[in-house]
């Protein structure tokens, strides 16, 4: 379970250009729940996702995942938490264009010193779930936008994280590829993953695939 209690995030704190991105956020996300964070650009959705994903630390407040206060962890454990618990899907792909799809899945695995057999098995499962197995040995530079995104999804779930965070995942996709993405999301939901999607794409609401919708406006939960 993810618990956020009185979370605030101020950028450029103690300067005259300080900006309060999040204000007194209180939110509980149950294990296996899928949550849609809705709001206009600049409302604080991405900041909130980054705090849950331990990419940013809050300026004050508590962020606990399964009872563990992640905002008090050392860098070593934050890296471990990000590697083992979080899968991050963003609108930009951040892939190694010159490498194959299979090789792009390696970075999260090799840091864990897994055996080659285990790496092979985990990669195969992730690619299968993301419907990209047929392009496993193809260079990322030659893939279409939708395929690149599926490659990124495969990389983000290759370590079997419990929590999947998606930041505007369909912003660069056409409707067809967006629907494919949503199909993958459904599979992940059925596997019991906790999913948080931050988007203003109406498709997610139309299809009613998310358990709960939370509106964020000017850094506050409405």
């Amino acid at each position, binding site marked *: 379970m993810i618990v956020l209690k009185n979370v*605030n995030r101020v950028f450029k*704190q103690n300067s005259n250009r300080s900006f309060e991105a999040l204000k007194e956020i209180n939110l509980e996300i149950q294990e296996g729940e899928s949550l849609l964070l809705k709001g206009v650009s600049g409302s604080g959705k991405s900041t909130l996702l980054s705090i849950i994903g331990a990419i940013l*630390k809050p*300026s*004050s407040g508590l962020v606990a995942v399964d009872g563990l206060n992640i905002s008090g962890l050392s860098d070593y454990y934050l890296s471990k938490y990000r590697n083992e618990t979080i899968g991050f899907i963003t609108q930009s792909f951040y892939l190694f264009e010159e490498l194959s799809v299979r090789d792009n899945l390696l970075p999260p695995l090799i840091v864990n010193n897994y055996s080659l057999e285990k790496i092979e098995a985990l990669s195969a499962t992730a690619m299968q779930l993301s419907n990209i197995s047929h392009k496993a040995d193809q260079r990322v530079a030659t893939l279409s936008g939708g395929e690149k995104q599926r490659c990124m999804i495969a990389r983000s779930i290759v370590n079997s994280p419990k929590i999947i965070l998606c930041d505007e995942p369909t912003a660069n996709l056409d409707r067809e590829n967006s629907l494919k993405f949503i199909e993958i999301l459904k599979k992940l939901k059925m596997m019991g993953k906790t999913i948080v999607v931050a988007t203003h794409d109406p498709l997610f609401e139309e299809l009613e695939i998310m358990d709960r919708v939370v509106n964020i406006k000017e850094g506050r939960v409405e």
Partner: protein
Amino acid sequence: MLFIAMYHTLIILLKYNRDATDSLQYILEKKSYLVGVIVWVALVVKIFLLLFFVYTLSELADIVPGAMCGAGVIGSNIYGEPLLLLKIAIVFLACLWILLNIEEQRDIKRTFFRVKLWFFGGLFFLIVLEAILETLFLSNISTQNPVLCCSSIYKDTEFGTSLPFELSNVVLVVSFYSFLALILVSNYKKYGAVNILLTLLFAYVSYYAIVYFFGTYIYELPTHKCPFCLFQSEYNYIGYFIFGSLFVASFYSISSSLSIFTAKSHTKAMLWYLLFACFVSYSFLLYIFHNRVFL
């Protein structure tokens, strides 16, 4: 840098509360990271500064009358020897702090958060003391008054010995290799307190074995019993390798025996001890092989 780190350390020690989630705590946590990085960098630099200090002592011998090597410079006033010992102790403690910092980062409960900061506080006090001693030492080196150099180390001997317990060279060498075997076994078996005791004893025996026995083979002169000439270019700076490897081996051996450190380095300690033994024995064995005579 260290003054900035100490200033923030005091604030963190006074105000940090691990259970609080207010803005101040997050700021203090960021500051603790900053302090950790500053201290880490400063202490790593100090390790190199110790080597530079030893090199400087050898170089200063040229301007101090009567000094032939660092021994003369270090003995030129009363601050020299305590300063050198303090510098070695600080580098040893600095290495322990670096290990403690890694340990603290890898402990999910961050048990050593305050211990690390207090440890740095103590280390900071020693570093300030070192700076004072260093100023006194350097400002009191006379370039007019002659000093006693290596000669003073063996002045009261006639190729004889001023070894502790009036040991003979044979007993010294046998003790050296016996302790070497013991320390290797002790590290292999991962003994705790016994290992620390043996490490200290071996370091003590090694110092005398280097100066009173192995050194004479490096200098190829039975009367020359000086630890500092080993750092000179005439002897290929072998002193840095000999004393450096002994220091690293002793550090790994002791830190592996301390229960607070989960990362054990007994194997590294054994390898460094073997390397040290090679550096020490090389000249001796070479001399015996070529000349078939003991000095």
